[in-house]
């Protein structure tokens, strides 16, 4: 079971977990990304590539399912403007065992950072700038081979 969603509205973590619990597995792992307020950031804005973004998230989930025994995975990524402290991305993996669920969850968020066409703008009050891609993110994604 693969579920991906690109949406402006906030997601309901409990409802998303409950949907995967119904697969009858022994382990769920979740990752939630939250808009950080460090360095004076007051809000962010997310842009994406309609069509390609959804396909790339499905492709990342399919790659995870070939590497780990997953009963399901969910990726929800918000777009548009979000204030500091708001959740931005949710990754959930469901597996019979914790190791697969935890590793696959880390793999999915690492790959999402380098493979999914999203672009982030940071607001500091009225000042705005595009976020630069980090070499450390590319290195983490590459470390999965």
């Amino acid at each position, binding site marked *: 079971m693969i579920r991906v969603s690109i949406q402006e509205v906030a997601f309901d973590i409990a409802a998303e977990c409950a949907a995967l619990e119904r697969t009858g597995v022994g382990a769920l792992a979740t990752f939630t990304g939250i808009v950080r307020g460090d360095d004076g950031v007051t809000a962010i804005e*997310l842009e994406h*590539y309609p069509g*390609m973004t959804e396909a790339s998230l499905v492709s990342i989930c399919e790659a995870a399912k070939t590497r780990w025994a997953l009963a399901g995975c969910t990726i929800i990524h918000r777009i548009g403007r979000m204030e500091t402290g708001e959740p931005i991305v949710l990754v959930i993996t469901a597996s019979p065992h914790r190791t697969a669920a935890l590793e696959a969850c880390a793999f999915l968020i690492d790959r999402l950072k380098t493979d*999914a066409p999203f672009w982030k703008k940071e607001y500091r009050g009225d000042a705005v700038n595009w976020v*630069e*891609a980090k070499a450390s*993110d590319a290195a983490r994604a590459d470390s999965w081979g």
Partner: protein
Amino acid sequence: MTMKLVYFARVREALGRDSEDIDFPANVRSVSEALDWLATQSPNHAEAFADRSKLRFALNQRMVKADAAISGASEFAIFPPVTGG
């Protein structure tokens, strides 16, 4: 053949548009040759495509390298390295 160019983020803002239809000359075969040709079309294009290390590409919504052949693609996207998550 007309190809739809689509731009995102900083590239879209530098060009002041999110897409344009382009008929590349027959001698333009790869992504990098397409960038060379586009850069001759306006000062904005030249500036937006000056630093190739800050650009990524997709043909028909699949990421490709700069040496990929563009023939057969109907949609050609040019954008900065991605920063989601």
